[in-house]
Protein backbone atom coordinates (compact mmCIF):
# COMPACT_ATOMS: atom_id res chain seq x y z
CA UNK A 1 0.00 0.00 0.00
CA UNK A 2 1.10 3.53 -0.56
CA UNK A 3 0.91 4.22 3.13
CA UNK A 4 4.16 2.32 3.48
CA UNK A 5 6.43 5.27 2.70
CA UNK A 6 5.47 6.88 5.94
CA UNK A 7 5.22 3.92 8.21
CA UNK A 8 8.71 4.43 9.49
CA UNK A 9 8.04 7.77 11.03
CA UNK A 10 4.39 7.36 11.83
CA UNK A 11 4.81 5.70 15.24
CA UNK A 12 6.91 8.60 16.44
CA UNK A 13 4.30 11.07 15.28
CA UNK A 14 1.53 9.04 16.84
CA UNK A 15 3.23 9.10 20.21
CA UNK A 16 3.53 12.84 20.14
CA UNK A 17 -0.01 13.23 18.96
CA UNK A 18 -1.35 10.82 21.54
CA UNK A 19 0.04 13.06 24.21
CA UNK A 20 -1.30 16.18 22.58
CA UNK A 21 -4.77 14.94 21.89
CA UNK A 22 -5.49 14.74 25.57
CA UNK A 23 -5.67 18.51 25.40
CA UNK A 24 -8.51 20.23 23.63
CA UNK A 25 -8.41 19.82 19.89
CA UNK A 26 -8.76 23.52 19.49
CA UNK A 27 -6.09 24.58 21.94
CA UNK A 28 -3.01 26.29 20.51
CA UNK A 29 -1.48 23.01 19.38
CA UNK A 30 1.81 23.20 17.49
CA UNK A 31 1.51 22.93 13.72
CA UNK A 32 1.23 19.38 12.45
CA UNK A 33 4.29 17.70 10.94
CA UNK A 34 4.16 18.52 7.24
CA UNK A 35 3.99 15.97 4.43
CA UNK A 36 7.41 14.65 3.43
CA UNK A 37 7.84 16.97 0.46
CA UNK A 38 7.38 20.01 2.71
CA UNK A 39 10.15 18.92 5.06
CA UNK A 40 12.86 21.57 5.35
CA UNK A 41 10.58 24.47 4.47
CA UNK A 42 11.23 27.74 6.32
CA UNK A 43 8.59 29.68 8.28
CA UNK A 44 8.48 32.31 5.52
CA UNK A 45 7.64 29.59 3.00
CA UNK A 46 4.77 28.19 5.08
CA UNK A 47 2.08 29.48 2.73
CA UNK A 48 3.95 28.69 -0.46
CA UNK A 49 1.58 27.38 -3.14
CA UNK A 50 4.36 25.19 -4.64
CA UNK A 51 3.56 21.49 -4.72
CA UNK A 52 4.76 18.37 -6.59
CA UNK A 53 2.87 17.19 -9.67
CA UNK A 54 1.38 13.73 -10.13
CA UNK A 55 1.34 11.79 -13.39
CA UNK A 56 -1.86 11.04 -15.28
CA UNK A 57 -1.86 7.37 -14.29
CA UNK A 58 -4.34 6.48 -17.03
CA UNK A 59 -2.18 8.27 -19.59
CA UNK A 60 -3.24 10.85 -22.12
CA UNK A 61 -3.69 10.35 -25.84
CA UNK A 62 -0.95 11.95 -27.95
CA UNK A 63 -3.56 13.24 -30.39
CA UNK A 64 -4.82 15.54 -27.62
CA UNK A 65 -1.34 16.90 -26.88
CA UNK A 66 0.75 19.58 -28.67
CA UNK A 67 3.44 17.11 -29.77
CA UNK A 68 4.10 19.26 -32.86
CA UNK A 69 5.33 22.02 -30.54
CA UNK A 70 8.37 20.01 -29.44
CA UNK A 71 11.54 21.64 -30.78
CA UNK A 72 14.93 20.17 -31.80
CA UNK A 73 18.03 21.35 -33.66
CA UNK A 74 17.78 21.29 -37.49
CA UNK A 75 17.77 17.82 -39.03
CA UNK A 76 16.32 16.14 -35.94
CA UNK A 77 12.73 15.06 -35.60
CA UNK A 78 10.62 13.68 -32.77
CA UNK A 79 7.60 11.40 -33.02
CA UNK A 80 5.41 9.44 -30.66
CA UNK A 81 6.79 5.89 -30.56
CA UNK A 82 4.36 4.26 -28.12
CA UNK A 83 1.58 5.43 -25.82
CA UNK A 84 -0.61 3.94 -23.14
CA UNK A 85 2.39 2.94 -20.98
CA UNK A 86 1.24 4.02 -17.51
CA UNK A 87 3.65 6.42 -15.81
CA UNK A 88 6.52 5.44 -18.15
CA UNK A 89 9.84 5.98 -16.35
CA UNK A 90 13.10 4.01 -16.71
CA UNK A 91 13.86 2.27 -20.01
CA UNK A 92 15.87 -0.83 -20.98
CA UNK A 93 16.41 -2.40 -24.40
CA UNK A 94 16.29 -6.16 -25.01
CA UNK A 95 18.46 -7.98 -27.56
CA UNK A 96 15.38 -8.68 -29.67
CA UNK A 97 14.23 -5.07 -29.54
CA UNK A 98 11.80 -5.23 -26.63
CA UNK A 99 11.69 -1.98 -24.68
CA UNK A 100 11.13 -2.56 -20.96
CA UNK A 101 9.45 0.31 -19.10
CA UNK A 102 9.30 0.89 -15.35
CA UNK A 103 7.28 3.16 -13.05
CA UNK A 104 6.95 4.13 -9.40
CA UNK A 105 3.24 3.80 -8.70
CA UNK A 106 1.67 1.32 -11.12
CA UNK A 107 3.28 -1.82 -9.59
CA UNK A 108 3.86 -3.32 -13.04
CA UNK A 109 6.69 -3.50 -15.55
CA UNK A 110 5.61 -3.07 -19.15
CA UNK A 111 7.16 -4.48 -22.32
CA UNK A 112 6.75 -2.60 -25.58
CA UNK A 113 7.15 -4.77 -28.66
CA UNK A 114 7.81 -3.19 -32.04
CA UNK A 115 5.57 -4.78 -34.64
CA UNK A 116 7.07 -2.85 -37.53
CA UNK A 117 5.30 0.47 -37.49
CA UNK A 118 2.97 -0.24 -34.61
CA UNK A 119 3.85 -1.13 -31.06
CA UNK A 120 2.15 -3.44 -28.62
CA UNK A 121 2.23 -2.62 -24.90
CA UNK A 122 2.21 -5.74 -22.72
CA UNK A 123 1.87 -5.83 -18.95
CA UNK A 124 4.89 -8.02 -18.25
CA UNK A 125 5.20 -8.15 -14.45
CA UNK A 126 2.56 -7.32 -11.84
CA UNK A 127 2.28 -6.65 -8.13
CA UNK A 128 5.77 -5.17 -7.68
CA UNK A 129 6.76 -2.63 -5.07
CA UNK A 130 7.89 0.62 -6.74
CA UNK A 131 9.65 -1.08 -9.70
CA UNK A 132 11.58 2.00 -10.85
CA UNK A 133 14.82 0.36 -12.04
CA UNK A 134 15.17 -1.87 -15.12
CA UNK A 135 18.27 -3.32 -16.78
CA UNK A 136 18.56 -5.85 -19.59
CA UNK A 137 21.71 -7.94 -20.05
CA UNK A 138 22.42 -11.26 -21.78
CA UNK A 139 18.81 -12.35 -21.96
CA UNK A 140 17.98 -11.37 -18.38
CA UNK A 141 15.80 -8.52 -17.13
CA UNK A 142 16.81 -7.11 -13.75
CA UNK A 143 14.28 -5.05 -11.80
CA UNK A 144 15.02 -2.79 -8.83
CA UNK A 145 12.03 -2.56 -6.51
CA UNK A 146 11.85 -0.55 -3.35
CA UNK A 147 13.42 -3.23 -1.19
CA UNK A 148 15.06 -5.72 -3.55
CA UNK A 149 16.64 -6.41 -6.92
CA UNK A 150 15.35 -9.38 -8.88
CA UNK A 151 16.17 -11.16 -12.15
CA UNK A 152 13.96 -12.70 -14.82
CA UNK A 153 16.01 -14.97 -17.09
CA UNK A 154 15.17 -15.57 -20.74
CA UNK A 155 12.61 -12.80 -20.54
CA UNK A 156 12.28 -12.01 -24.23
CA UNK A 157 11.27 -15.58 -24.94
CA UNK A 158 8.43 -15.39 -22.43
CA UNK A 159 6.87 -11.97 -22.69
CA UNK A 160 3.37 -13.40 -22.27
CA UNK A 161 4.28 -15.64 -19.39
CA UNK A 162 7.15 -14.13 -17.44
CA UNK A 163 9.20 -16.48 -15.28
CA UNK A 164 9.15 -16.17 -11.49
CA UNK A 165 11.47 -13.61 -9.98
CA UNK A 166 14.82 -14.75 -8.64
CA UNK A 167 16.20 -12.52 -5.92
CA UNK A 168 19.63 -10.94 -6.50
CA UNK A 169 19.53 -9.03 -3.20
CA UNK A 170 16.79 -8.02 -0.78
CA UNK A 171 16.53 -6.10 2.48
CA UNK A 172 17.36 -2.84 0.72
CA UNK A 173 14.76 -0.87 2.65
CA UNK A 174 14.97 -2.15 6.24
CA UNK A 175 13.55 1.06 7.69
CA UNK A 176 10.67 1.45 5.24
CA UNK A 177 12.12 4.86 4.62
CA UNK A 178 10.20 7.98 3.75
CA UNK A 179 11.41 10.28 1.02
CA UNK A 180 13.41 8.89 -1.90
CA UNK A 181 12.75 5.16 -1.75
CA UNK A 182 12.62 4.33 -5.48
CA UNK A 183 15.71 2.96 -7.13
CA UNK A 184 17.49 3.47 -10.41
CA UNK A 185 19.42 0.48 -11.76
CA UNK A 186 22.30 0.22 -14.25
CA UNK A 187 24.86 -2.42 -15.16
CA UNK A 188 28.47 -1.29 -14.75
CA UNK A 189 31.42 -2.29 -16.95
CA UNK A 190 32.55 -4.47 -14.02
CA UNK A 191 29.42 -6.61 -14.41
CA UNK A 192 27.90 -5.31 -11.18
CA UNK A 193 24.48 -3.77 -10.77
CA UNK A 194 24.60 -0.20 -9.48
CA UNK A 195 21.63 1.31 -7.62
CA UNK A 196 20.86 4.38 -5.56
CA UNK A 197 19.40 4.49 -2.08
CA UNK A 198 18.14 8.05 -1.70
CA UNK A 199 17.97 10.28 1.36
CA UNK A 200 14.90 9.62 3.55
CA UNK A 201 13.57 13.15 3.14
CA UNK A 202 14.38 16.51 1.66
CA UNK A 203 17.16 17.55 4.02
CA UNK A 204 17.78 15.00 6.78
CA UNK A 205 20.72 13.05 8.13
CA UNK A 206 20.84 9.76 6.22
CA UNK A 207 21.51 6.54 8.06
CA UNK A 208 24.03 3.92 7.01
CA UNK A 209 23.58 3.00 3.33
CA UNK A 210 21.17 5.84 2.53
CA UNK A 211 22.13 8.80 0.30
CA UNK A 212 24.56 6.58 -1.58
CA UNK A 213 25.11 4.69 -4.80
CA UNK A 214 25.85 1.03 -4.10
CA UNK A 215 26.65 -1.97 -6.26
CA UNK A 216 25.87 -5.66 -6.05
CA UNK A 217 27.48 -8.58 -7.84
CA UNK A 218 24.57 -10.45 -9.47
CA UNK A 219 26.55 -13.72 -9.25
CA UNK A 220 27.07 -13.63 -5.50
CA UNK A 221 24.47 -11.16 -4.19
CA UNK A 222 27.22 -9.38 -2.28
CA UNK A 223 26.77 -5.61 -2.13
CA UNK A 224 28.93 -2.69 -1.14
CA UNK A 225 28.54 1.04 -0.94
CA UNK A 226 30.31 2.72 -3.86
CA UNK A 227 29.97 6.49 -3.30
CA UNK A 228 28.11 8.49 -0.66
CA UNK A 229 26.72 11.94 0.04
CA UNK A 230 24.34 11.60 -2.92
CA UNK A 231 20.90 13.00 -1.99
CA UNK A 232 19.15 11.09 -4.76
CA UNK A 233 20.33 9.95 -8.16
CA UNK A 234 17.84 8.52 -10.63
CA UNK A 235 20.18 8.29 -13.60
CA UNK A 236 23.70 7.08 -14.25
CA UNK A 237 25.89 5.71 -17.02
CA UNK A 238 29.55 5.02 -17.69
CA UNK A 239 31.72 7.05 -20.04
CA UNK A 240 32.38 4.82 -23.08
CA UNK A 241 36.15 5.50 -22.97
CA UNK A 242 37.13 6.40 -19.40
CA UNK A 243 34.58 3.93 -17.99
CA UNK A 244 33.99 6.29 -15.09
CA UNK A 245 30.54 6.51 -13.52
CA UNK A 246 28.64 9.70 -14.33
CA UNK A 247 25.42 10.43 -12.48
CA UNK A 248 22.74 13.06 -12.05
CA UNK A 249 21.74 14.25 -8.59
CA UNK A 250 18.82 16.27 -7.28
CA UNK A 251 19.63 19.14 -4.92
CA UNK A 252 17.58 19.87 -1.84
CA UNK A 253 14.32 21.84 -1.92
CA UNK A 254 13.15 24.97 -0.07
CA UNK A 255 16.43 26.87 -0.27
CA UNK A 256 15.10 29.35 -2.81
CA UNK A 257 14.32 29.53 -6.51
CA UNK A 258 17.96 29.58 -7.58
CA UNK A 259 19.69 27.48 -4.98
CA UNK A 260 21.05 24.93 -4.90
CA UNK A 261 21.73 23.70 -8.42
CA UNK A 262 21.06 20.10 -9.38
CA UNK A 263 24.24 18.28 -10.35
CA UNK A 264 26.07 16.19 -12.90
CA UNK A 265 28.79 14.24 -11.09
CA UNK A 266 31.63 11.88 -11.91
CA UNK A 267 32.71 9.15 -9.53
CA UNK A 268 36.36 8.27 -10.03
CA UNK A 269 36.98 6.05 -7.06
CA UNK A 270 35.08 4.07 -4.52
CA UNK A 271 34.34 5.92 -1.29
CA UNK A 272 34.04 9.43 -2.68
CA UNK A 273 31.61 11.72 -0.82
CA UNK A 274 29.51 14.17 -2.85
CA UNK A 275 28.43 16.45 -0.01
CA UNK A 276 24.86 15.70 1.07
CA UNK A 277 23.58 16.79 3.56
CA UNK A 278 26.50 19.09 4.46
CA UNK A 279 27.40 20.81 1.21
CA UNK A 280 25.29 21.46 -1.91
CA UNK A 281 26.47 22.04 -5.50
CA UNK A 282 30.08 21.75 -4.36
CA UNK A 283 30.25 25.24 -2.86
CA UNK A 284 27.21 25.97 -0.67
CA UNK A 285 27.05 24.81 2.93
CA UNK A 286 23.66 23.70 4.17
CA UNK A 287 22.22 26.27 6.63
CA UNK A 288 21.62 23.52 9.19
CA UNK A 289 23.88 20.53 8.45
CA UNK A 290 26.75 22.58 7.04
CA UNK A 291 27.72 24.10 10.39
CA UNK A 292 31.34 23.31 11.16
CA UNK A 293 31.92 21.75 7.72
CA UNK A 294 33.99 22.74 4.70
CA UNK A 295 32.86 22.14 1.12
CA UNK A 296 36.46 21.31 0.22
CA UNK A 297 36.00 17.97 1.96
CA UNK A 298 33.53 16.83 -0.71
CA UNK A 299 33.66 16.15 -4.43
CA UNK A 300 32.04 19.01 -6.38
CA UNK A 301 29.86 18.45 -9.47
CA UNK A 302 31.44 18.63 -12.94
CA UNK A 303 28.41 20.61 -14.11
CA UNK A 304 25.60 22.53 -12.44
CA UNK A 305 22.39 21.67 -14.24
CA UNK A 306 20.15 24.41 -12.79
CA UNK A 307 18.09 24.74 -9.62
CA UNK A 308 15.19 22.30 -9.21
CA UNK A 309 15.35 21.08 -12.83
CA UNK A 310 15.19 17.46 -11.58
CA UNK A 311 17.68 15.66 -13.85
CA UNK A 312 16.71 11.98 -14.08
CA UNK A 313 17.86 9.42 -16.66
CA UNK A 314 21.11 10.07 -18.55
CA UNK A 315 23.06 8.12 -21.20
CA UNK A 316 26.15 8.59 -23.29
CA UNK A 317 25.33 8.64 -26.97
CA UNK A 318 27.45 6.15 -28.90
CA UNK A 319 25.24 5.71 -31.97
CA UNK A 320 26.00 6.58 -35.59
CA UNK A 321 22.68 8.16 -36.61
CA UNK A 322 23.32 11.60 -35.07
CA UNK A 323 26.13 13.85 -36.44
CA UNK A 324 29.69 13.03 -35.32
CA UNK A 325 29.79 15.92 -32.82
CA UNK A 326 27.14 14.10 -30.76
CA UNK A 327 29.33 11.02 -30.21
CA UNK A 328 29.96 10.41 -26.49
CA UNK A 329 27.75 13.36 -25.56
CA UNK A 330 25.41 12.91 -22.61
CA UNK A 331 21.66 13.23 -22.98
CA UNK A 332 19.86 13.99 -19.73
CA UNK A 333 16.09 13.88 -19.15
CA UNK A 334 15.19 16.88 -16.98
CA UNK A 335 11.85 16.13 -15.35
CA UNK A 336 11.29 19.78 -14.42
CA UNK A 337 10.90 21.84 -11.30
CA UNK A 338 8.01 22.07 -8.89
CA UNK A 339 9.89 23.75 -6.04
CA UNK A 340 10.43 26.98 -7.94
CA UNK A 341 8.07 29.94 -8.48
CA UNK A 342 9.18 30.26 -12.12
CA UNK A 343 9.43 26.79 -13.59
CA UNK A 344 12.33 25.42 -15.65
CA UNK A 345 13.55 22.10 -17.04
CA UNK A 346 11.05 19.74 -18.71
CA UNK A 347 13.46 19.03 -21.56
CA UNK A 348 16.15 16.73 -22.91
CA UNK A 349 19.48 18.36 -22.11
CA UNK A 350 22.72 17.81 -24.01
CA UNK A 351 26.21 17.86 -22.49
CA UNK A 352 29.24 17.73 -24.83
CA UNK A 353 32.63 16.57 -23.55
CA UNK A 354 36.12 16.87 -25.01
CA UNK A 355 38.49 13.95 -25.53
CA UNK A 356 39.62 14.15 -21.92
CA UNK A 357 36.08 13.85 -20.68
CA UNK A 358 35.78 17.51 -19.68
CA UNK A 359 32.49 19.33 -20.19
CA UNK A 360 32.86 21.81 -23.05
CA UNK A 361 29.29 22.85 -23.64
CA UNK A 362 25.76 22.13 -22.49
CA UNK A 363 22.21 23.25 -23.17
CA UNK A 364 18.67 22.13 -23.92
CA UNK A 365 18.37 19.74 -26.88
CA UNK A 366 14.63 19.05 -27.00
CA UNK A 367 12.22 21.64 -25.61
CA UNK A 368 8.51 22.46 -25.81
CA UNK A 369 6.97 20.64 -22.85
CA UNK A 370 7.12 23.82 -20.75
CA UNK A 371 4.36 26.09 -22.02
CA UNK A 372 3.86 28.66 -19.23
CA UNK A 373 6.54 28.92 -16.56
CA UNK A 374 4.11 30.63 -14.16
CA UNK A 375 1.13 28.31 -14.66
CA UNK A 376 0.09 25.40 -12.47
CA UNK A 377 0.82 22.98 -14.03
CA UNK A 378 3.35 24.76 -16.28
CA UNK A 379 3.95 21.82 -18.62
CA UNK A 380 2.16 19.14 -20.58
CA UNK A 381 4.83 16.44 -20.37
CA UNK A 382 7.83 15.41 -18.26
CA UNK A 383 10.88 13.48 -19.58
CA UNK A 384 12.23 10.74 -17.28
CA UNK A 385 14.74 8.52 -19.08
CA UNK A 386 16.57 8.26 -22.41
CA UNK A 387 17.49 5.12 -24.32
CA UNK A 388 19.68 4.69 -27.39
CA UNK A 389 18.16 2.28 -29.91
CA UNK A 390 20.10 -0.04 -32.19
CA UNK A 391 19.69 2.27 -35.19
CA UNK A 392 21.12 5.18 -33.21
CA UNK A 393 17.80 6.91 -32.63
CA UNK A 394 16.97 8.03 -29.10
CA UNK A 395 13.85 7.09 -27.16
CA UNK A 396 12.70 8.98 -24.11
CA UNK A 397 9.90 8.40 -21.64
CA UNK A 398 7.30 10.85 -20.32
CA UNK A 399 5.67 9.68 -17.11
CA UNK A 400 3.13 12.52 -16.99
CA UNK A 401 1.35 11.16 -20.08
CA UNK A 402 2.55 7.56 -20.33
CA UNK A 403 4.19 8.16 -23.72
CA UNK A 404 7.50 7.11 -25.33
CA UNK A 405 8.93 9.42 -28.00
CA UNK A 406 11.61 8.70 -30.61
CA UNK A 407 14.18 11.27 -31.74
CA UNK A 408 15.88 10.59 -35.08
CA UNK A 409 18.18 12.47 -37.42
CA UNK A 410 18.30 12.66 -41.21
CA UNK A 411 20.80 14.66 -43.24
CA UNK A 412 19.17 17.37 -45.29
Amino acid at each position, binding site marked *: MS*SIPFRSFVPLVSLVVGALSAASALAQAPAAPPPSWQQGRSAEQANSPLHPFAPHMTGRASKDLPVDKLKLPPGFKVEVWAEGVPEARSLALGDKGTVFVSNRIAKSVYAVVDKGGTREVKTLLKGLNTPNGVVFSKGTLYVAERDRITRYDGIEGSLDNAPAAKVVIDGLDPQNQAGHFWKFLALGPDGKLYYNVGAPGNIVMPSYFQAAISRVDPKTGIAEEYVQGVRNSVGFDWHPQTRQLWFTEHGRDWLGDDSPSDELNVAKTKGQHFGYPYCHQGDTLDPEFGKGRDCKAYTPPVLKLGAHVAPLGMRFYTGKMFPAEYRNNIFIARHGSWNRSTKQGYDIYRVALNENGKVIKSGPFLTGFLTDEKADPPMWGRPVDVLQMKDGSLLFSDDYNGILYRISYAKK
Partner: protein
Amino acid sequence: MNSICRAGAAALAAALCFSGAGEALAADPQLCAVCHGPEGNSIIPANPSLAAQPEQSISIQLFQFREGNRKDAQMTPMAANLSNKEMNELAAYFSKQKAAAPSHKTSPENVVAGAKLAQQFNCAQCHGPVLRGQQHIPRLAGQQYEYLLAQLRKFKAQKRADLDGNMTSAAQPLSDRDIEILVDYAAGLSPQ
Protein backbone atom coordinates in the same frame (compact mmCIF):
# COMPACT_ATOMS: atom_id res chain seq x y z
CA MET B 1 -20.96 -5.97 -19.83
CA ASN B 2 -22.31 -9.12 -18.27
CA SER B 3 -19.25 -9.52 -16.15
CA ILE B 4 -19.59 -5.97 -14.91
CA CYS B 5 -23.23 -6.52 -14.04
CA ARG B 6 -22.49 -9.80 -12.33
CA ALA B 7 -19.47 -8.57 -10.52
CA GLY B 8 -20.96 -5.19 -9.78
CA ALA B 9 -22.94 -6.82 -7.02
CA ALA B 10 -24.33 -3.51 -5.88
CA ALA B 11 -28.09 -3.90 -5.76
CA LEU B 12 -28.63 -0.69 -7.63
CA ALA B 13 -26.28 -1.56 -10.45
CA ALA B 14 -27.84 -4.98 -10.71
CA ALA B 15 -31.26 -3.42 -11.04
CA LEU B 16 -29.96 -1.35 -13.90
CA CYS B 17 -28.55 -4.40 -15.67
CA PHE B 18 -31.73 -6.43 -15.34
CA SER B 19 -33.84 -3.56 -16.57
CA GLY B 20 -32.17 -3.82 -19.94
CA ALA B 21 -29.99 -0.77 -19.56
CA GLY B 22 -27.12 -3.23 -19.21
CA GLU B 23 -26.47 -2.91 -22.90
CA ALA B 24 -24.87 0.44 -22.18
CA LEU B 25 -21.15 0.84 -22.67
CA ALA B 26 -18.85 -0.03 -19.80
CA ALA B 27 -17.86 3.61 -19.71
CA ASP B 28 -21.42 4.88 -19.68
CA PRO B 29 -21.56 7.58 -17.00
CA GLN B 30 -25.19 6.63 -16.33
CA LEU B 31 -23.95 3.43 -14.76
CA CYS B 32 -21.78 5.47 -12.38
CA ALA B 33 -24.72 7.78 -11.69
CA VAL B 34 -26.67 4.87 -10.19
CA CYS B 35 -24.47 5.12 -7.12
CA HIS B 36 -22.85 8.54 -7.52
CA GLY B 37 -26.09 10.41 -8.28
CA PRO B 38 -27.45 12.33 -11.25
CA GLU B 39 -24.56 14.05 -13.08
CA GLY B 40 -22.35 12.71 -10.33
CA ASN B 41 -24.02 14.61 -7.50
CA SER B 42 -24.34 11.88 -4.92
CA ILE B 43 -27.50 11.55 -2.88
CA ILE B 44 -26.15 8.57 -0.96
CA PRO B 45 -24.22 9.73 2.13
CA ALA B 46 -21.54 7.03 1.90
CA ASN B 47 -20.82 7.66 -1.79
CA PRO B 48 -18.76 10.57 -3.07
CA SER B 49 -19.93 13.16 -5.53
CA LEU B 50 -17.95 13.18 -8.75
CA ALA B 51 -19.39 16.31 -10.32
CA ALA B 52 -16.85 19.11 -10.73
CA GLN B 53 -14.05 17.04 -9.28
CA PRO B 54 -10.68 17.79 -10.93
CA GLU B 55 -10.43 15.50 -13.97
CA GLN B 56 -7.11 13.95 -13.00
CA SER B 57 -8.35 13.19 -9.47
CA ILE B 58 -11.13 11.00 -10.90
CA SER B 59 -9.00 9.12 -13.43
CA ILE B 60 -6.33 8.40 -10.82
CA GLN B 61 -8.83 6.94 -8.37
CA LEU B 62 -10.33 4.72 -11.08
CA PHE B 63 -6.80 3.54 -11.88
CA GLN B 64 -6.16 2.85 -8.19
CA PHE B 65 -9.31 0.70 -7.99
CA ARG B 66 -8.51 -1.25 -11.16
CA GLU B 67 -4.91 -1.91 -10.11
CA GLY B 68 -6.03 -3.10 -6.68
CA ASN B 69 -4.25 -0.33 -4.79
CA ARG B 70 -7.57 0.97 -3.49
CA LYS B 71 -10.19 -1.62 -2.66
CA ASP B 72 -13.95 -1.36 -2.29
CA ALA B 73 -16.60 -4.07 -2.60
CA GLN B 74 -18.59 -2.05 -5.12
CA MET B 75 -15.96 0.03 -6.89
CA THR B 76 -13.30 -2.64 -7.41
CA PRO B 77 -15.44 -4.75 -9.78
CA MET B 78 -16.82 -1.65 -11.48
CA ALA B 79 -13.32 -0.46 -12.35
CA ALA B 80 -11.89 -3.89 -13.11
CA ASN B 81 -12.70 -3.90 -16.82
CA LEU B 82 -12.33 -0.24 -17.64
CA SER B 83 -9.58 0.74 -20.08
CA ASN B 84 -7.44 3.81 -19.52
CA LYS B 85 -9.33 5.52 -22.30
CA GLU B 86 -12.69 4.80 -20.68
CA MET B 87 -11.40 6.06 -17.36
CA ASN B 88 -10.26 9.28 -19.02
CA GLU B 89 -13.64 9.70 -20.68
CA LEU B 90 -15.51 9.22 -17.42
CA ALA B 91 -13.16 11.61 -15.65
CA ALA B 92 -13.65 14.24 -18.34
CA TYR B 93 -17.43 13.84 -18.22
CA PHE B 94 -17.84 14.14 -14.47
CA SER B 95 -15.29 16.94 -14.10
CA LYS B 96 -17.45 19.04 -16.41
CA GLN B 97 -20.74 18.52 -14.52
CA LYS B 98 -22.05 21.25 -12.26
CA ALA B 99 -21.79 20.49 -8.58
CA ALA B 100 -25.02 20.70 -6.61
CA ALA B 101 -25.19 22.81 -3.47
CA PRO B 102 -24.11 20.74 -0.47
CA SER B 103 -26.81 18.96 1.50
CA HIS B 104 -24.68 19.29 4.63
CA LYS B 105 -24.77 22.38 6.80
CA THR B 106 -21.69 23.09 8.93
CA SER B 107 -22.51 23.71 12.57
CA PRO B 108 -21.87 27.39 13.35
CA GLU B 109 -19.03 26.79 15.80
CA ASN B 110 -17.09 24.76 13.25
CA VAL B 111 -17.10 27.35 10.47
CA VAL B 112 -14.12 29.18 11.96
CA ALA B 113 -12.68 26.21 13.85
CA GLY B 114 -12.69 24.05 10.71
CA ALA B 115 -10.96 26.69 8.60
CA LYS B 116 -8.31 27.05 11.26
CA LEU B 117 -7.67 23.30 11.44
CA ALA B 118 -7.56 23.10 7.64
CA GLN B 119 -4.64 25.54 7.77
CA GLN B 120 -2.97 24.01 10.79
CA PHE B 121 -3.03 20.47 9.43
CA ASN B 122 -1.95 21.37 5.87
CA CYS B 123 -5.31 20.47 4.21
CA ALA B 124 -5.44 23.80 2.40
CA GLN B 125 -1.85 23.40 1.17
CA CYS B 126 -2.85 20.75 -1.35
CA HIS B 127 -6.65 20.90 -1.57
CA GLY B 128 -6.58 24.68 -2.03
CA PRO B 129 -7.68 27.60 0.17
CA VAL B 130 -11.39 26.65 0.04
CA LEU B 131 -10.75 22.92 -0.49
CA ARG B 132 -11.88 22.74 -4.09
CA GLY B 133 -9.01 20.50 -5.17
CA GLN B 134 -6.57 20.80 -8.04
CA GLN B 135 -5.07 18.44 -10.63
CA HIS B 136 -4.81 15.01 -8.92
CA ILE B 137 -6.06 16.32 -5.57
CA PRO B 138 -9.83 15.95 -5.02
CA ARG B 139 -12.37 18.59 -4.11
CA LEU B 140 -13.49 18.25 -0.49
CA ALA B 141 -15.78 21.29 -0.48
CA GLY B 142 -19.41 20.16 -0.47
CA GLN B 143 -18.46 16.48 -0.60
CA GLN B 144 -20.69 13.97 1.22
CA TYR B 145 -20.12 14.18 4.98
CA GLU B 146 -20.17 10.44 5.66
CA TYR B 147 -17.84 9.69 2.80
CA LEU B 148 -15.28 12.26 3.95
CA LEU B 149 -15.47 11.01 7.52
CA ALA B 150 -14.86 7.41 6.47
CA GLN B 151 -11.93 8.31 4.20
CA LEU B 152 -10.16 10.52 6.71
CA ARG B 153 -10.51 7.86 9.39
CA LYS B 154 -9.06 5.27 6.99
CA PHE B 155 -6.11 7.54 6.17
CA LYS B 156 -5.47 7.97 9.87
CA ALA B 157 -5.61 4.18 10.32
CA GLN B 158 -3.17 3.82 7.38
CA LYS B 159 -5.73 1.73 5.53
CA ARG B 160 -6.56 3.99 2.63
CA ALA B 161 -4.58 3.80 -0.61
CA ASP B 162 -2.63 6.92 -1.17
CA LEU B 163 -0.84 7.89 -4.38
CA ASP B 164 2.28 9.23 -2.74
CA GLY B 165 1.89 8.81 1.01
CA ASN B 166 1.04 12.46 1.63
CA MET B 167 -2.52 11.93 2.88
CA THR B 168 -1.54 9.11 5.18
CA SER B 169 1.13 11.26 6.76
CA ALA B 170 -1.13 14.32 6.89
CA ALA B 171 -3.84 12.38 8.76
CA GLN B 172 -1.58 10.99 11.48
CA PRO B 173 -1.65 14.00 13.83
CA LEU B 174 -5.45 14.37 13.67
CA SER B 175 -7.49 13.51 16.76
CA ASP B 176 -10.95 11.98 16.35
CA ARG B 177 -12.40 15.36 17.26
CA ASP B 178 -10.20 17.14 14.69
CA ILE B 179 -11.49 14.77 12.02
CA GLU B 180 -15.11 15.46 12.93
CA ILE B 181 -14.59 19.23 12.87
CA LEU B 182 -12.68 19.18 9.58
CA VAL B 183 -15.28 17.01 7.88
CA ASP B 184 -18.16 19.07 9.23
CA TYR B 185 -16.40 22.14 7.86
CA ALA B 186 -15.47 20.75 4.42
CA ALA B 187 -18.81 19.08 3.70
CA GLY B 188 -20.64 22.38 4.14
CA LEU B 189 -18.39 24.48 1.88
CA SER B 190 -19.61 25.65 -1.48
CA PRO B 191 -18.28 23.24 -4.12
CA GLN B 192 -17.84 25.72 -6.96
